[in-house]
């Protein structure tokens, strides 16, 4: 029996071009952009402004969410309208720590976060216990979204809820959570959520160094997500997922229990979203229940669809295209942004089932055929 370690096989199973692009990406995000932001003077043509760093950092977080969404939707065929919830939960979990780090620098100069003072609360609710610890916050970020997803997924998949039913139920779950977080009494700042963060681990959150650190972490996390995703989809696990997408009953009659496959990828997807949310919140400086709105969750799906489902690079490209367009439109033609986004949904589903990546592959194939025809 051939016993090559699976890591080696995995490295072999991924084309060289993939590793090269990853290295280029690493160089760009971990070296070039940080240096151009920190070391190049502001007036210089090569200076990367803090606006750009924050925008790209935000998009990196969105890209992680998009890849996570693609793992569950593109590869396993399960469309979630609840990924906004997992993203927000990760954000809130880390946001609690950020709120505590404000310390007495809030507008009420109190020990408690401002919104609690405003509600006339005298002490922290029990679920805020330990929120002043960075480690605990990190644990919450990893555990809470994954746990919620696991519990929800376990029951939903066990009851064999699939297709649009599953989508609608995830939407209802997210909607319920949003209503819950909108309440002031829930203890997460109600409408306004968390904002006015001051520092992380004692360092100012607005310093260029912190900005670059968060940016770099997001880039690293995206790369880790891509490598992990690549590993999963090339493993037998990934093939079973694709099989579930194509013919779930056949999978069952072959002796696989789809429940655990779906549950595993669903929970992993939520976990990745949670991490992305935790990286996102300190970069944009705010988290509120609006992140849980139906619109946000559906938008994640369109990032994936625009880029190309069931590819790993597609969601990253899609997240970038849609969000850069959003920044452009909301500044230049705010009136037309929704028309553009809406049209994007329609156009992609009608004419671009494989997204930009699919279009590119198709064009390349046609070129090759033409070349072959000539030769």
């Amino acid at each position, binding site marked *: 029996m051939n016993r090559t370690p699976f890591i080696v096989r995995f490295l072999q199973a991924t084309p060289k071009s993939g590793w090269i692009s990853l290295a280029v990406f690493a160089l760009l995000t971990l070296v070039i952009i940080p240096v151009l932001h920190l070391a190049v003077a502001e007036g210089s043509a090569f200076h990367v402004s803090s606006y750009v760093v924050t925008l790209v950092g935000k998009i990196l977080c969105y890209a992680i969410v998009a890849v996570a969404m693609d793992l569950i*939707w593109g590869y396993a065929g399960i*469309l979630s309208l609840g990924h906004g919830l997992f993203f927000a939960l990760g954000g809130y979990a880390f946001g609690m720590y950020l709120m505590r780090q404000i310390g007495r620098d809030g507008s009420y100069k109190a020990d408690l976060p401002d919104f609690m003072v405003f509600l006339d609360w005298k002490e922290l609710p029990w679920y805020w216990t330990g929120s002043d610890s960075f480690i605990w916050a990190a644990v919450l970020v990893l555990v809470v979204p994954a746990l919620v997803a696991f519990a*929800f997924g376990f*029951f*939903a998949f*066990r*009851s*064999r*809820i699939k*297709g*649009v*039913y599953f*989508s*609608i*139920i995830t*939407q*209802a*779950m997210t*909607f*319920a959570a949003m*209503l*819950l977080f*909108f*309440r002031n009494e829930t203890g997460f700042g109600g409408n306004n959520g968390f904002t006015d963060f001051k520092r992380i681990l004692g360092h100012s959150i607005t310093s260029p160094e912190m900005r670059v650190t968060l940016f770099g972490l997001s880039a690293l996390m995206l790369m880790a997500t891509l490598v992990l995703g690549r590993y999963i989809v090339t493993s037998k696990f990934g093939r079973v997922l694709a099989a579930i997408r194509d013919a779930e*009953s056949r999978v069952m009659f072959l002796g696989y229990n789809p429940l655990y496959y779906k549950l595993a990828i669903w929970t992993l997807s939520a976990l990745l979203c949670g991490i992305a949310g935790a990286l996102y919140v300190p970069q944009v400086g705010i988290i509120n229940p609006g992140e849980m709105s*139906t*619109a946000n969750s*559906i938008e994640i*799906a*369109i990032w994936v*669809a625009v880029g190309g489902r069931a590819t790993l690079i597609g969601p990253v490209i899609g997240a970038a295209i849609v969000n850069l367009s959003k920044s452009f439109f909301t500044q230049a033609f705010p*009136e*037309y942004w*929704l*028309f553009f*986004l*809406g*049209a*994007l*949904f*329609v156009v*992609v*589903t*009608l004419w671009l*089932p494989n997204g930009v990546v699919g279009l590119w592959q198709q064009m390349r194939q046609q070129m090759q055929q033409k070349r072959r025809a000539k030769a």
Partner: protein
Amino acid sequence: MRHFLLALFCCLSLHAVAGVDTAVLKQLASEESDDKIAAIQKLARSADPDAIKTLHDLAEGTLKDDKGEDITVNNRVRREIDAALAALRLFDADPVARLSAAKEVAANADASMAPVLAKALAKESDPKIKGLLAEAHALATLKDAKPEVRIAAAKALASSADPNIKAVLKAQSEEANEAESLVRRAAFQSYLEVKDRLTLAETVGKIFSGLSLGSILLLAALGLAITYGVMGVINMAHGELLMIGAYATFGMQTLFRNHLPDYLDWYLLAAVPVAFFAAAGVGVLLERTVIRWLYGRPLETLLATWGLSLMLIQAARVLFGAQNVEVANPSWMSGGLEILPSIVLPLNRIVIVGFSLFVLALVWALMNKTRLGMFVRAVTQNRPMAGCVGVPTTRIDTVAFALGAGIAGLGGVALSQIANVGPDMGQGYIVDSFMVVVLGGVGQLAGAVWAALGLGIVSKFLESWAGAVIAKIVVLVFIIVFIQKRPQGLFALKGRFVEN
């Protein structure tokens, strides 16, 4: 007693030019507020039409004393004048005036009013006013010196349905306020009766508001149930079809206001067909241009229709502005139906419940009594087979979608009467209407009806003890859990064609 005789005398006497007995006038002119009040009460008991004029003049500050000087009044006296005027109006010839007076008096009847109330009660013939007066009289005599009068009063109050009276009776049944144990017992007995009546009334009120919410949900979900049932299409733009219906109503209102102001009250009737066809037209457009090309790909349909909904919302913003527009109830729909003193059912809600029943009956008849309905049901149950036996499935799809959209438009008409009309209004209903469809079971009209009404009533009851937000969360969680147990909904189709 002397005052009373005096009052009676006033009542019977042919009046002097001044209209008021000079002794009373003199008392009114007194420097002491207490004297003034005594005189006012005397006038109140007189039940004399001229007394009304005198009191009015007094309130206005134009009444002159025998020396021809204005009589001044302070706030305390003024309050007394108001009460006296109400008491006097109890004898007005116009029953409407008497009713409003009776209501006013009943709200703050005190012991001093007892005689005049007794008199008014004796003269009154209208049963409704009589009831009010009896209540007010009982309330006024509840603090009477004689225990037997108090007992009678407490007993008389048992038929009330007024939360204030409940509180008064409760107080009367406590030892601190009432020395006589017999009175306490009678008061407590009556208190229990009133409490039960109020609880019942409250329950009826909640059921009604639940029905009202349910009928809105039904109107929102009925169209969705058809499109989802027939085509398996999740139409995320369904809420925007509601919005189109509501804006169509707004349009008709504007049209009538500008061109047919005399018939403004009837704009709503005109809006019904207009909203139906406007929404149905948009529905056909969506079906022909987008949804048709996505059959068999439900998840893609979900995304594409979401995109359509974004565009429709933005279109509404561009056309009508981002602000809510004002749609008024026609006059025949404003006001309420009082079923108990504490329960008023708003007319607009009653009309909407009726309207949704009407739409439901129409849809039911269409689905079960017409050839079109038969085709639609055939396609719902087995599309390929329906196609094989010659049902034009693609045309049925368009018609069914138009129908579903049109019904959403009708839902919009109803919504415009009770909710804000704005570009985002549809978004608020999309989750709810999906929940109704999912709960009811796909393609099941009966399921949608039970689910809508059930959800409406359950929500209202939950709201009363947990608040609106928690109620909503509880309902959503309940549905999520319920779907785990019965993935096919309340009314499931069974058999081998169900899965996949």
